[in-house]
Structures are given as structure tokens and as C-alpha cells.
């Protein structure tokens, strides 16, 4: 029962997928997310820390969840944030967005709104000018509207 209702919730959730047959939509698993992170990071280690990921712990609708990601950095030509990448573990694909920054940003802080297909963990990876990678994660509970439009 739990499995069925979470699958039904997933099918109805965030990205607006409508009901269909027994075919299961391709779902990101933690394994795919790790592959996607590897594709960006290569063989370099990723250290937890320095990145701050702000997401609401509970979202009323997975279609538009506000997200802010930041890193403390002087943002000088010698030492700055090159990029911030965001991934999810349970969306149909793990990549969400990559922001390319640099010293001209002045501050490493970006906000946007993302889609979350289900209750899950979001990971942000910060890439510094010295080639190091840092990460933070945040768990979000996603609820749905009780009455869904079906026309």
C-alpha cells in the first residue's frame, strides 16, 4: 500500500505527470545522482561543508520550491567560486541547474525555484577556483494539493 500510494503521489506530483499504465517513469535513484555528480566533479573528492543550501523543510507544492544556495568567498580573481551545481535524488533526472560565477559576481549567492517530484534530498555542489569541491544537502517534504485539476 505504501509503495502504491507513493508511486501514485509521484505520478501526480510536481512535474504534473498524469495517470497512465503500469509503466514506471524513469526515476532518478541515488545511484544516478552519484553518476551525475561524478560527471561534473570527475575524480576529485567532494567535501561536506562551506556550501549553504536553503530550502523550505516542507513545500506545499512541488512545482515551485524556492531555493537559495550560497558560499562564503571573497570572490577575488585569486580565490572565488567558479560554479554551483544542484542535484536531486528522486526527480526523473538528477541535474537541476548549474550556475557559473566568477569574481565579477561579488558574492556567491543565487536563488531560483525548482521542481521536486517527491519528498527527497537536494544536493548542492560548489566548485572553487582552486579546483576543490564542497557540498551541502537538504531534505524537503513535498505535499500536493488535495483536489487535483483533471480537465
Amino acid at each position, binding site marked *: 500500500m505504501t509503495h502504491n500510494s507513493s508511486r501514485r503521489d509521484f505520478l501526480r506530483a510536481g*512535474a*504534473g*505527470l*498524469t495517470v*497512465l*499504465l503500469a509503466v514506471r*517513469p*524513469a526515476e532518478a535513484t541515488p545511484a544516478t545522482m552519484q553518476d551525475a555528480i561524478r560527471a561534473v566533479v570527475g575524480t576529485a573528492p567532494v567535501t561536506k561543508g562551506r556550501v549553504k543550501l536553503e530550502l523550505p523543510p516542507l513545500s506545499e507544492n512541488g*512545482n*515551485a*520550491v524556492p531555493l537559495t544556495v550560497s558560499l562564503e568567498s571573497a570572490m577575488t580573481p585569486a580565490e572565488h567560486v567558479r560554479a554551483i551545481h544542484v542535484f*536531486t535524488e528522486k*526527480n*526523473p*533526472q538528477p*541535474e*537541476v*541547474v*548549474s*550556475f*557559473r*560565477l*566568477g*569574481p*565579477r*559576481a*561579488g*558574492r556567491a*549567492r*543565487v*536563488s*531560483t*525555484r*525548482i*521542481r*521536486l517530484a517527491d519528498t527527497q534530498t537536494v544536493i548542492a555542489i560548489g566548485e572553487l577556483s582552486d579546483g576543490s569541491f564542497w557540498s551541502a544537502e537538504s531534505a524537503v517534504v513535498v505535499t500536493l494539493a488535495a483536489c487535483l485539476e483533471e480537465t
Partner: protein
Amino acid sequence: MAETLISVPPRARRGEIVEIKTLVSHAMETGYRRSQLGERIPRDIIRLFVCTYNGTEVFRAELHPAIAANPFITFSTVATESGTLAFHWTGDNGFSVRETAEIRVD
């Protein structure tokens, strides 16, 4: 909807970090939805957003379907000189929208 909504302070002091807020009208069709007949609705999203400041790129975002409809992106840049901030969104099916904003730096 109007195509874009940009918020840039019209004036800033040299060296000040200014916050830029951008909103663009786009459904961001994920490519994972199916129609009532079971057919996949093809992906149609904005894939790239670039901001230049007097011609020099200062910010870029590579978007995937998990960015919410009507993409909202807020970022910052150092007010270096007076001039034009140019914004360009591009995506599937030849989507291309440009907008500019003037900034005066004292």
C-alpha cells in the same frame, strides 16, 4: 504573460554588489509528462541564461527540466561602470529572448 520582468537597481556606487532578479515567461515543459492518450509531451525548456555587463559575461545558468515554470533567477554582480546589462535566454525549439537594463555607476 509579458516575456520578462527584470529588477536591477538603476544606480549604484562603484564596487557595490548589486542584486539582479530575473523572471521569464516559459512553461518549461519537462518532457516527462504524458498526454491523456499516453503520449509523451516533448521537452521544451529554456536551457541557458547568460548575463553580460557591457559585453562581458558575468553570470550564466544552465537549466534542466527541474527548474520551475516561468524561471526565476536571482544573482549578483559588482557595479564596475555605468552601462548596459544584457540578458539572453535560449532554449529548445529555437527559443531566444533578450532584454537589457541600464545601470548608472557613480
